[in-house]
C-alpha cells in the first residue's frame, strides 16, 4: 500500500493538533479550576476568618468608643447613664456579660436595675492593672477586659463577654452553600472536558490532511483563539474561512468556547438556585461588577453584569443603606463585613445577607473587594413561623400554654413591682365533649374559634387571652382596681359567651363556667394562682354551670374534705366495707313484686352516708369500676340464692356507671356472671342514666352486645337529664323510670302530673314499660294506675332493705295474700 504525504501529514499534524488542543483545553480547565478553587478557598477562608475574628475585631475597633461612652458617667458615678450605655451597646453587640468596676475592681454596675454584683471584687491581673486591654478568644465567646481611662486618668475597668453562637451557624450555612456550588461546577467542567476531548480528537484527525497544505495562517488564528478562550473571552469568535477541515476545526473551536460558556451559565444557574450573587469592586470605580444573578436576588428584575454604585445602593432600604455604603470607601481599607439588609421589590420586602472579605492588598495597595449577597428571606420566615408555632395555638391564634405561663410570670412580677392586682380567669365550656360527639369535631373547632373571638372582644388589648388545651381558656386581667371590676368582667364574659350559635343549620347552645383567682389577694405563688382559679372554675361548674366563681379559702377546705372522703372510700374498697340493699318493684295492678333494685350502701365508719355524696367520688376517682364488679357479683349471687329458696322469677335491676362502659369486654363479664349464677338474662336489667346513653360513641357497641344477650335496659331518672330522645331510637330500651321528683307532687302540681302522664303515654306508644319511682302515698299509686302506669317502687311498698329483711318482707306479703297497699 502506497504511503501518501497527506496521510503522513494527517498523522503528524493530527497528533500535534491533538496535543495543542488538549493542552489548550487543559490550560483553560486548569485556569478555571484554579481560579474557581482559589475563589472558593478565598471566600471560605475569608468568611472563616471573618466569622472568627469579626467579633474580635469589632471589640478591638470599638474599644475607643466604649471608653468614650463610659468614661464620663463612670467619672461622675452616674449609674443610670452607665446602665443606659450598656443597654445601647447591647443593641448592636451580642453581649453575654457587661460589668464595670472601679479602679480597685469593685463592681459598679452590671447594667441591670437589680445590680446583684454591686460591690463584688473582680480579680485584676497584673496586665489589667497596667492598663492594657486584653482580649481572649474562646470557642463560644470572646472576653474583653479594658481600662476606662483618659490620659492615664483611670476611672475603672469594663469586662465584656460577647457570644459567638451566630457566627457558628453562619459558617455552617456558608460551607454547605460552597460545597453545593462546587459540586455543580466540577460536574459541568468534567462534562465539558470530556466533550471537548472527543470533539478535538475527531477534528484533529479529520483536519490533518488539510492542515498539511494550509498550516500557518489557520494555525496562527487558532492559536490566538485558544489564547482568548484561555483568557476567559468566551465570546471570541474564530473566523471560518472555508468549508474544509480547517473551517470545521474553527467551528469546533467555536463550539468548544460555547460549551465553556455553557459552564459559565451553569455556574450562574447554581447561584440562582442558591439565591446567591457575587460582586467585585475596585477603588475609584463608580460601578460594581456582579454576577448575573445578583440583580435578580436584589429584586430589580434586570440581568446585567455591571451596575452603578449609586443604583446598587438605591435598591437597599433607607435604614440600612448608609451602613452598606460605608463599605465602598476608596480612602481606607475595608474590613470583613457581614450584614443583613432589607430591599423592597414589587413582590414585597426581601431580606438579603451581604458578606465580604477583607479588602485585597497588592504591593501595599488596596486592590479590590469581592463578596456575595444571598436572599435569606425564607430562612427569616421559617424562624418567624417557628417562633409563632412555639407560642400560639394554631386553631384560634391565641397564645398557648407556653406563652400563657410566660405572660403570667411577667404579669405577676409587674403586679408585684407596681403593687397592683391582677385576676386570673379560667374559662371552661360546659358539655363541650357532647357538642363534639353530637355535631362532630369541625363544628367543635368552630365553637372554639367563636369562643376565642368572644373572649378577645370582651377584654382589653392589654389583657392576655390564651387557650391551654381542649375547651380550657384563660384570661390574665392586669391592673385590677377592685372586686367590682372583676365581677363586671366575668358578667360581661358570660353574657358574650352564653347563647345559641348557629352553624350549618345546627343550633348549638354554648355556656361556660368561670373560675377566678386574684394576685396577690389569694396567693403570690404562680402555681397556686393557677390551681385556685381551676378550683374556682370547678366550683362554678358544680354550683350552676354557666356561672362564675371567685376563689375563696373555703374551697381549699372543701377540697380537703373531699380528699378525706376519697381516702376513706379507697380504704373501704380495699376492705370490702360496702353493703347492698334491695328495694322491691311492684305491679300496681295486682300488688305483686316483679323485681328488686340493688342499691349500694356505705356505712362510713359505721355511719350511713348518702349515696349522692360518695357515688360521684367513686366515679371521679375510677373506684366505681372495682365496686361495680363487686355489686354485679354480689347481687347476682343473692338473686341466685333467692331463686334456689323458691322466691320465683323476680327481676334484678342494677345501676351502671358510664365508666363501666369503657371496660373492655364488659358485656362478656355480665354474661359470665349470669351463667355462673344460672340467672336468665331477661330477668336481669341494667339501669343507666340519660347522660350515659347520650354518649353514643361510649356505649353503642356495649349496648348492642347486651341486647344480643337478652339483658333488659332501663333508663333511670327519666325526664331530668337531656331532652334528646334519639337514644330511644338507637337502643331498644325496655323500661323508663319516672324520676321521683315528678311523682312527689302528684295531686298537688299540675305541671308534674302532665309530665308524668306524658312519659307514660310516650312509653305506651313506643311499647316500653314504665316504673314510677318514689311512690309514697296510695293516692299517687292510684293516679299513676289511672294514667296507665303499670309498675312502681317507693316507701309505700317497701324501702331499700338488707337481703335478710327482704326475705321477711316477701314472706309477710305472701302471708297476707292480698296486696296490703291497694286494699
Amino acid at each position: 500500500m502506497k504511503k501518501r504525504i497527506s496521510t503522513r501529514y494527517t498523522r503528524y499534524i493530527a497528533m500535534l493538533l491533538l496535543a495543542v488542543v488538549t493542552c489548550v483545553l487543559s490550560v483553560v480547565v486548569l485556569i478555571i479550576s484554579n481560579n474557581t478553587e482559589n475563589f472558593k478557598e478565598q471566600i471560605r477562608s475569608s468568611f472563616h476568618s471573618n466569622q472568627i475574628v469579626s467579633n474580635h475585631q469589632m471589640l478591638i475597633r470599638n474599644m475607643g468608643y466604649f471608653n468614650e461612652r463610659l468614661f464620663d458617667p463612670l467619672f461622675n458615678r452616674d449609674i443610670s447613664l452607665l446602665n443606659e450605655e450598656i443597654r445601647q451597646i447591647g443593641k448592636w453587640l451580642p453581649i453575654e456579660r457587661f460589668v464595670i468596676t472601679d479602679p480597685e475592681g469593685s463592681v459598679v454596675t452590671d447594667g441591670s436595675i437589680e445590680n446583684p454584683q454591686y460591690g463584688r471584687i473582680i480579680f485584676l491581673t497584673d496586665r489589667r492593672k497596667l492598663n492594657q486591654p486584653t482580649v481572649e478568644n474562646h470557642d463560644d465567646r470572646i472576653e474583653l477586659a479594658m481600662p476606662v481611662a483618659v490620659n492615664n486618668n483611670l476611672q475603672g475597668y469594663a469586662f465584656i463577654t460577647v457570644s459567638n453562637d451566630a457566627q457558628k451557624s453562619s459558617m455552617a450555612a456558608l460551607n454547605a452553600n460552597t460545597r453545593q456550588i462546587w459540586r455543580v461546577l466540577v460536574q459541568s467542567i468534567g462534562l465539558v472536558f470530556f466533550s471537548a476531548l472527543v470533539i478535538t480528537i475527531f477534528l484533529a484527525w479529520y483536519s490533518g490532511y488539510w492542515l498539511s497544505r494550509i498550516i500557518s495562517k489557520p494555525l496562527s488564528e487558532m492559536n490566538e483563539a485558544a489564547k482568548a478562550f484561555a483568557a476567559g473571552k468566551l465570546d471570541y469568535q474564530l473566523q471560518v474561512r472555508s468549508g474544509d477541515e480547517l473551517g470545521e476545526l474553527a467551528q469546533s473551536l467555536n463550539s468548544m468556547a460555547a460549551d465553556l460558556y455553557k459552564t459559565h451559565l451553569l455556574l450562574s444557574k447554581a447561584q440562582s438556585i442558591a439565591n446567591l450573587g457575587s460582586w467585585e469592586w475596585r477603588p475609584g470605580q463608580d460601578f460594581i461588577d456582579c454576577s448575573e444573578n445578583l440583580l435578580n436576588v436584589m429584586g430589580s428584575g434586570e440581568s446585567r453584569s455591571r451596575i452603578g454604585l449609586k443604583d446598587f445602593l438605591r435598591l437597599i432600604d433607607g435604614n440600612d443603606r448608609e451602613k452598606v455604603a460605608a463599605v465602598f470607601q476608596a480612602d481606607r481599607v475595608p474590613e470583613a463585613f457581614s450584614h443583613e439588609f432589607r430591599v423592597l421589590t414589587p413582590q414585597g420586602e426581601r431580606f438579603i445577607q451581604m458578606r465580604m472579605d477583607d479588602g485585597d492588598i497588592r504591593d501595599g495597595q488596596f486592590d479590590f473587594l469581592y463578596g456575595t449577597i444571598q436572599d435569606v428571606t425564607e430562612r427569616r420566615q421559617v424562624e418567624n413561623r417557628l417562633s409563632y408555632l412555639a407560642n400560639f395555638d394554631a386553631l384560634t391564634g391565641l397564645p398557648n400554654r407556653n406563652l400563657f405561663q410566660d405572660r403570667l410570670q411577667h404579669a405577676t412580677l409587674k403586679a408585684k413591682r407596681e403593687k397592683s392586682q391582677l385576676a386570673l380567669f379560667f374559662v371552661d365550656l360546659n358539655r363541650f365533649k357532647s357538642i363534639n360527639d353530637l355535631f362532630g369535631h369541625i363544628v367543635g373547632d368552630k365553637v372554639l374559634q367563636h369562643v376565642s373571638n368572644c373572649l378577645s372582644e370582651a377584654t382589653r388589648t392589654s389583657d392576655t387571652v390564651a387557650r391551654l388545651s381542649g375547651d380550657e381558656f384563660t384570661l390574665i386581667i392586669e391592673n385590677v382596681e377592685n372586686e367590682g371590676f372583676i365581677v363586671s368582667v366575668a358578667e360581661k364574659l358570660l353574657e358574650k359567651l352564653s347563647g345559641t350559635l348557629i352553624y350549618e343549620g345546627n343550633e348549638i347552645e354554648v355556656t361556660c363556667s368561670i373560675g377566678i383567682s386574684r394576685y396577690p389577694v389569694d396567693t403570690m405563688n404562680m402555681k397556686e394562682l393557677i390551681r385556685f382559679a381551676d378550683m374556682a372554675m370547678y366550683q362554678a361548674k358544680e354550683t350552676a354551670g354557666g356561672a362564675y366563681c371567685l376563689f375563696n379559702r373555703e374551697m381549699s377546705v372543701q377540697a380537703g374534705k373531699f380528699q378525706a372522703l376519697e381516702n376513706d372510700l379507697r380504704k373501704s374498697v380495699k376492705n370490702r366495707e360496702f353493703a347492698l340493699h334491695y328495694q322491691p318493684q311492684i305491679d300496681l295492678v295486682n300488688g305483686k313484686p316483679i323485681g328488686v333494685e340493688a342499691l349500694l350502701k356505705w356505712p362510713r365508719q359505721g355511719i350511713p352516708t348518702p349515696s349522692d355524696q360518695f357515688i360521684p367520688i367513686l366515679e371521679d376517682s375510677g373506684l366505681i369500676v372495682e365496686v361495680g364488679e363487686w355489686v354485679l357479683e354480689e347481687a347476682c349471687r343473692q338473686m341466685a340464692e333467692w331463686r334456689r329458696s323458691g322466691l320465683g322469677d323476680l327481676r334484678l335491676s342494677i345501676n351502671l356507671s358510664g365508666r363501666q362502659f369503657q371496660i373492655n369486654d364488659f358485656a362478656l363479664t355480665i354474661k359470665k356472671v349470669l351463667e355462673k349464677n344460672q340467672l336468665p338474662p331477661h330477668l336481669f336489667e341494667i339501669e343507666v342514666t340519660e347522660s350515659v346513653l347520650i354518649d353514643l360513641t361510649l356505649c353503642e357497641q356495649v349496648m348492642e352486645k347486651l341486647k344480643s344477650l337478652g339483658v333488659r335496659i332501663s333508663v333511670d331518672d327519666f325526664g331530668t337529664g337531656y331532652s334528646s330522645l334519639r337514644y330511644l331510637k338507637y337502643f331498644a330500651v325496655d323500661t323508663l323510670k319516672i324520676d321521683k321528683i315528678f311523682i312527689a307532687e302528684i295531686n298537688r302540681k299540675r305541671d308534674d302530673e302532665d309530665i308524668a302522664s306524658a312519659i307514660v303515654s310516650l312509653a305506651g306508644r313506643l311499647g316500653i314499660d314504665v316504673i314510677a319511682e318514689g311512690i309514697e302515698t296510695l293516692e299517687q299509686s292510684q293516679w299513676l294506675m289511672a294514667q296507665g302506669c303499670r309498675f312502681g317502687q317507693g316507701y309505700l311498698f317497701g324501702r331499700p332493705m338488707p337481703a335478710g329483711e327482704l326475705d321477711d318482707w316477701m314472706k309477710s306479703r305472701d302471708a297476707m295474700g292480698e296486696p296490703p297497699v291497694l286494699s
Partner: protein
Amino acid sequence: MGVFCDRLGKPGVSVRLYQKFQDYLATNLSREGIELDNFYIACTEADMTAALRDNKVNMLMASLATTVAVNKDDELIEPAFVVWRKGIRHYRTVFFTRKDSPVQTIKNLQGKKIAFEKPLSTSGYYLPLSTLLNHNLACVESDVGEAEKDAVRFMFAGTELNQAYWVHSGKVDAGAFNDSDWDVTPKQIRKDLRIIYQTDPVMRWLFSFHKNMPVGLRRKVTAILTGMHEDPNGKLALRDAKNIARIEKFSKQDEMDFQRWKDLLTPLVGLQ
C-alpha cells in the same frame, strides 16, 4: 391645656404621654360646642408663665412645686383638682443615709453633703430643701466655692438610682427622694441604707384653671375630668398619661394643704 416636658429637651415624650388625654378632652368639649387647641408644652417655668399671661394656656396639669412656681408672681392659676398620677393621691419625701453613718437625724446633716435628684423635682428637690430650711439648716449648692462651714451642701445626681448609689458609696452623706422610689431601690444597696426622716404627705399632681376661665366652661371641664376614670376611653387616656388612676376635685382639706405647701415652697421656687 398646658403641660411641662417630662424629659428636658424632649417634648416628643410629652406628646406621646398626653396626646390621648388632650384628644379625649377635646372630643368631649366639642360635643358642647367648644373647640380646644392642641396642648402647650413648656420646658421651663418661665415659658409656662408667659403662656399663661398671653392666655395661650387655660388649664395646667403639673406637680405641686411647679404649680407653686408658675403662680409665684401673678397668681394666674387656681388649682382645682388632685391628679392621682402613677395611681397614688399622695406621696412624701424620705431622707436616707447609710446604716453605719453617724448621720441619724436631720440635724446631723449640718456641714454634710446631700444628693438631690434634679431641679424642678418636687419630691427630689423642693420638699427636701424646704425641710432642711425649716430645720434651720443653711443650704448651698456643692459647687459654690465659699460657704458657711455648717451649711448643708447639696448636689444633683440626675436620677433616683444615682442618689441611692452615691449615698451607698459615700460620695454624699444623705439622699432624699419620694417613698415610691425608695420601694424600687435595688435590694442589694437598700439593705445598707435607712430612712432617717420623712415629710408630711403632699398631693401627687395638680390640675389648675386659669383665673380668667369662665365658670360655665370650668363646670363642663370638671364634669369631664371627674368622670374620666369611669369611661373606658377616659381610662385609656388616663393610663397613657403616666398611669393616672383618677382626677378628683379639691376638698376643703386639699385647699388648706395646698395653701400650707404654697407658703413653704414659694420662697424656694424659681431659685434654680
